[in-house]
């Protein structure tokens, strides 16, 4: 079984950009990667974008992998493992998916929790919206995160950054928190964490 990287976060938080950088970096190190994308909407723009860049994508359509498509995720994993045997499987759930259910689907499939690394991308441009009207998804996502990537910092004021820091500490003090400046996700800490999950220390 390959190791799993989950890129979670609300719609538009920067999951696809993170994954693109991750794949570019890992491909240059000859890592055998598979990418599963679950997108809401009648047309999968992220899928088309990745395909345009030359990547092969396993798409999951017609629902959300955290609920209606969890069995679809499991059958895709079985197919991937038998036909491709990747070293690393990167999964991009839809921006409305609950990470708890997605991780449970992976655990039910037999992946040990330590073989899954969940990067939660926190979009600071909409921090107020997450706190005010989307608190269940926001807090639930934080609780499941192994790493919190704080993104779009340029749109946040000091007060929001401080509040975010306090909420993260309260809800998930064990998570690693990484601030992302200038859209550069592949800071040394991220590369170290990926190498760790791949057993390449």
């Amino acid at each position, binding site marked *: 079984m390959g190791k799993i990287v989950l890129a979670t976060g609300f*719609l*538009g938080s920067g999951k696809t950009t993170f994954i693109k950088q991750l794949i570019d970096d890992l491909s240059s190190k000859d890592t055998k990667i598979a990418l599963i994308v679950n997108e*809401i909407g*009648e*047309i999968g723009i992220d899928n088309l974008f990745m395909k345009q860049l030359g990547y092969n994508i396993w798409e999951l359509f017609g629902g959300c992998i955290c609920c209606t498509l969890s069995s679809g995720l499991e059958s895709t994993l079985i197919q991937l493992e038998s036909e491709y045997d990747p070293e690393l499987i990167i999964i991009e759930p839809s*921006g409305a998916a609950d990470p708890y259910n997605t991780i449970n689907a992976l655990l039910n499939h037999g992946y040990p929790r330590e073989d899954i690394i969940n990067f939660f991308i926190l979009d600071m441009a909409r921090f107020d919206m997450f706190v005010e009207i989307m608190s269940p998804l926001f807090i639930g996502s934080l609780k499941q995160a192994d790493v919190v990537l704080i993104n779009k910092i340029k749109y946040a004021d000091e007060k929001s950054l401080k509040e975010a820091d306090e909420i993260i500490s309260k809800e998930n003090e064990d998570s690693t928190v990484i601030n992302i400046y200038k859209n550069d996700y592949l800071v040394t800490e991220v590369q170290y964490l990926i190498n760790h999950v791949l057993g390449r220390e």
Partner: protein
Amino acid sequence: MYQEEFVPVSFKLKIKRKYTVNLKYWAEIMKNIFDLYAEEICKNNDCHIGHIKALFTGKEKDYIKLSIIKKGLPAETDFEGINKYPAIELIVNSIVSSVDQKMSLAAMKSACKSLEKKFQIKTQIIAGTKQHH
């Protein structure tokens, strides 16, 4: 979660000019259209933008990607490629709370109409586009 609040609307947008232009210029046209579109759909609404995104894919690995995530924040565009095009066809996914297909298409039509003269473009919106596998 929140799939009921954030209902996706998908459509295609064709934009045509008399003369070919590079991707940078097309990205600028897209930015103007989508900034107006977002302003229009959020005008009389207590709406929250989930994600408005549009993609053009051209020859080889050419692309233009556009993204709007919040009312009042301008569209961000990203493009790669050196080819020039007389027309582009965009795939649009617009996920905005309390905005249905009818409202969305009306807003796009209005945005396009406002800018046709400025950028010397002709536009066509194709609703109800589905992806085939």
